[in-house]
């Protein structure tokens, strides 16, 4: 913990907030920073929880929903 900075800069979450928000063009106002950090912390815990069901390399479901439309009737 850096005693002059309550944001605990040694935690990669803080550096991530700065870098990733700049990268996606989001401004994180100082008054929202603690809230954003708290939700990222929850997300980090959730990511750790995924380890209870490690998928095999061949178990894929990477696209949320992707189906090609049928061709127009005139072309079928």
């Amino acid at each position: 913990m850096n005693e002059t900075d309550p944001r605990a800069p040694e935690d990669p979450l803080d550096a991530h907030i700065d870098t990733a928000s700049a990268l996606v063009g989001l401004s994180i106002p100082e008054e929202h920073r603690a809230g954003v950090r708290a939700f990222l912390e929850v997300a980090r815990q959730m990511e750790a929880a995924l380890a209870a069901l490690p998928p095999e390399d061949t178990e894929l479901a990477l696209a949320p929903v992707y189906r090609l439309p049928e061709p127009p009737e005139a072309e079928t």
Partner: protein
Amino acid sequence: MSATGPRASAAEIAAAVAEGRVTAADVTEAALARIATEDKTVNAFTAVTQERARAEAAAIDAARAAGRPLGPVAGVPYAVKNLFDVAGLATRAGARINRDHPPAARDAALVRRLHAAGAVLLGALNMGEYAYDFTGENAHDGACRNPHAPGRMTGGSSSGSGAAVAAGFVPLTLGSDTNGSLRVPASLCGVYSLKPSYGRLSRAGSFPFVDSLDHVGPLARSAADLAAAYDALQGHDPDDHASVPRAAEPATPALGDGIASLTIGIPDGWFEAHAAEPARAALARTADALGTAARLRPVTLEGVEAGRAAAYLITNAESAALHLPRLRSRLAEFDPDTRDRFLAGALLPAAWVTEAQRVRRRWLGRVLRAFETVDLLVVPATPFTAPEIGQRRIEIGGREVLLRPNLGLLAQPFSCIGLPVVTVPVFEPGALPIGIQLVAPPWREARALAAAAWLEGAGLATAHPPPAAAAA
């Protein structure tokens, strides 16, 4: 029961209208009058479509007078969560930002289907901002209040949809469910809901939240009304890219099938540990009742916490990506209770989200394996009864936890993998409601609805009226 009264079922109204014992106009006027006087307390409606309702009711009455056939829910009043397009209204999705949108040019697909079935639209309903909510609170439209205890939460995000049915304003509503948004308000408001299989009912013309996880479905005060609405809503729709081209499988004809042939699984472990006393008690009563007619067996679902975590990460990332332009340009106009979560979601590492999609698939495999030995799973819908509006923390199993994320804890694992779930109300008159989830294998909505009808017939599942209505 009077077809114009607050507890009349959709079936009773439709029969009375068809037989000429009441007009659709009278039913509509009675419902509009209830909303005008009682919704000041509940705050379920964000728009009441009186003119449209009167025109639709008049058309039903004219059709009957002319001897034309009526639809299965002709003359039945209903209302929809305000993320469904209603022609002439801006589709709010619970957000102040969306009030700037132009009015919808046409109704959502499910509104068109209920219209074709003869139902009468009374308006649009309150909801949590952009559906990212389990509480029913909304900074822009005000909290929706639980008809059973107006100082308490309705649950969300389909808050108005649960409250309007519980209060007796209408017998049917439509809502949506991404992580539990039909089941949580159904549980806390003491009504029935159906979250169908992912891809069963069309989402076309509804404002999205998380494309991978969004479902839409009905709420009602009886299993028969829920099935009737579901049957009217079914059918493939190419306008929703997730809609699966399956033929409609009507549930109403199978509603009396009972449960004698079923083996019903009661998940232990994680589900037990995350249910507070009222939820455990409701589950025990439900299991006792089911055990008189069906075979029961305990089930251990391995990996449920990973499945729930996958739901959280997919939800957070996809919803934030959807709203990224608004987060960049109109951040101050977001509800404070959704804003920081959306911001965090926009910053998630892609690898976490991709892994969550794969774990989602693996979790589905685990549950499908359980369905090789059982026909239904029975789980509480919420860990506890309705908290007080504004409450932030709650105790489960002797541990104090944040209330918002944990209200949907028991619902998330099943919507994450798209399974059909009927929520039934299991509570004593005068007590705070709580619901039980009947979880079925994919595409077996009819089985869950038949079990719900059996529990209703056994006297266990009942949408008791709120105390004030019961005393009136």
